[in-house]
């Protein structure tokens, strides 16, 4: 990661995400959108997948977007962005593009990325379009009212993985989306959390710069108040605990090298991580967990850190 912003005072001042949108109080994605739009600057085109962000920011005849913005459908934002990027290339070559070095940015949720949009994402990465793809991960289909996605963690309550006597929440583990993206050998991919703003904006900027080489990817952790069932003033706290317990490690994949970023760079040593329970207990979606289930989650988390440790040594 290149460091463009050293302190909070260096952060971009210009607001490019207008107030008056319909996002929930305390929405993690809203925080992400504000920093994404500020950091990418005005000369960018945004392609958005269907989801919470899309429906809450574009109620006709109003819009929260000061960027040129396009939403087409749920599963195709990467394909749409591929077309935008190709169009700019062709028009520039023919002397028909008048806006200079315009960047192309995708914003999509976990449903539109892990599940229904995975094919178009893979196609875009394989073709190496110069597009920054930003996933905001709130770990379920929140737009339709909290249904499980490929990103939902094991044992989590959702409306389609209810906690009953026979089945207790989601049965499967969360899909490793970063692993899938890294397997496409993109120049840059990174994780970020809305609780660690400097880290996040520097990664957005870095990922944007690298689009001159090919596709880049950001996985931004964005807690959801109604979906995760915590009070709306706790969003940043929940996100910070996700990082500090090691649940959501901050790292970047830069040209085939994996590097853990602070504070996650200390977390290979388990004793430096806060207990996972501190993160889980804040959220209603995990309220039903037994000690055995928490132990199983911890075991899986340890295994994940072992895997990350090996990748970091490559």
């Amino acid at each position, binding site marked *: 990661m290149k460091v463009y912003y050293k302190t909070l005072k260096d952060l971009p001042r210009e607001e490019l995400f207008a107030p008056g949108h319909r996002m929930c109080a305390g929405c993690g994605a809203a925080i992400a959108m504000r920093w994404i739009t500020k950091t990418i600057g005005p*000369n960018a085109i945004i392609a958005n997948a269907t989801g919470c962000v899309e429906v809450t920011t574009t109620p006709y005849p109003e819009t929260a977007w*000061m960027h*040129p*913005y*396009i939403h087409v459908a749920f599963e195709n934002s990467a394909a*749409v962005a*591929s077309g935008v990027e*190709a*169009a700019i290339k062709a028009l520039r070559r023919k002397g028909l593009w008048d806006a200079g070095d315009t960047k192309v940015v995708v914003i999509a949720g976990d449903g539109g990325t892990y599940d229904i949009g995975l094919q178009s994402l893979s196609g875009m990465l394989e073709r190496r379009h110069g597009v920054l793809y930003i996933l905001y991960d709130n770990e379920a289909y929140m737009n339709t009212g909290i249904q499980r996605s490929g990103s939902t963690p094991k044992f989590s309550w959702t409306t389609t993985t209810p906690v009953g006597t026979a089945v207790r929440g989601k049965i499967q583990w969360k899909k490793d989306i970063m692993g899938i993206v890294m397997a496409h050998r993109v120049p840059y991919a990174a994780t970020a959390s809305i609780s660690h703003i400097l880290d996040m904006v520097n990664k957005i900027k870095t990922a944007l710069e690298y689009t001159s080489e090919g596709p880049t990817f950001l996985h931004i952790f964005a807690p959801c108040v109604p979906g995760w069932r915590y009070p709306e003033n706790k969003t940043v706290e929940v996100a910070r605990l996700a990082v500090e317990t090691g649940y959501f490690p901050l790292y970047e994949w830069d040209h085939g090298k994996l590097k853990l970023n602070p504070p996650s760079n200390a977390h290979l040593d388990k004793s430096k991580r806060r207990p996972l329970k501190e993160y889980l207990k804040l959220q209603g979606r995990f309220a039903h967990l037994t000690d055995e289930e928490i132990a199983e989650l911890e075991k899986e988390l340890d295994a994940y850190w072992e895997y990350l440790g090996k990748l970091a040594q490559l």
Partner: protein
Amino acid sequence: MQVQKTKHIEALTTNYAVAYAVKAADVDVIAVYPITPQTTIVEKISEFVANGELNAELIHVESEHSALSAVVGAAATGARVFTATSSQGLELMHEVLHIAAGMRLPIVMAVPSRTLSAPISIHGDYSDLMNARDTGWVIYIAASAQEAYDTVIQAFRLAESVSLPVMVSYDGFLMSHTVEPVELNDEEEVRKFLPRAVRPYTLNPKRPVTMGPLASPDWYYEFKYQQVLALKEAYKVAKEVDSEYGRRFGRSYGVVETYRMEDADYAIVAYGGASYGNARAAADLARKRGIAAGVVRVRLYRPFPTADVLKALDGVKAFAVVDRAIMFGSPAEGPLYKDIATAMYMHGIDKPALGVIHGIGQRTMYVEDMYKIYTMLRENPRKEVVFLGVRV
């Protein structure tokens, strides 16, 4: 306007003719995905790009859904775009067909038509196209390689004039893979016919707009009504574009084409190459045998050219509509038949009209079969749907 003097004629399949039209139109972005019988279009275009004859970006998408999505993105950015598909590919695009029309994007797509699974068949009929007919696209059905070439060029002009996507369809295999002589226009002249207009609403950071927003019940209906109006406008503009094309390049077709209809008592209404060609041969045969037969071909299928079709059928005693697609469970299984029946009912016209389904899955349709339709019309004029050429 001066008609082009020097003639440049090539032996081309309809698919190749379409590729030549795309080259002449100086298209910027083309989404490439293979499906039979479409594939040779994008192969030929890829050759043009590889040889530097066409300055375009090819996007080698991973599905037809992404093919249309990518050209939606490119068209929204202000590029001139093209893609092509058939059959299951058109079905996979279906969701995005509605979106492309709803977003009023001037996309041109070629559809050599092919039947649908199951069972799988790669052969031609119009089942795919007819499933796409109510998506808000302008739809042409061409009847020769020459016409497909001319129609693709007209389609760009129409699409960019009325802000609607346009499909140019024709018979899978019977046309897509059949070689015919095609007169090619001078490319400079085509580019004069298709001037680059700066569209007011595109994705450009200098003039930011939000495209594809959410519309509440307060607004959604108005968007859809505007599409209705745009298609009505397209009916008028399609005729103007065809006339101007005729003045510049010496070939025009109208939105409805007629053959020996001046004094016809009995008519076959058809679309596409094989049906129209066979129907004309059958009309000649019928005329020799003393039946005043004629043929009406619907070239512009959406918006439906109601006035022109009714006018063409004005003097006949009875007619048959030949469909190469089945609308399962419909009161009449032929889609064009149902369109014409509706048009007649709405205009208070009551006439014997036979619905004929034929050529499904490219079942061979003989001129004799078409001739038989004329005898059926003369001997027993009635309203009924018959399935020709099927083993029952």
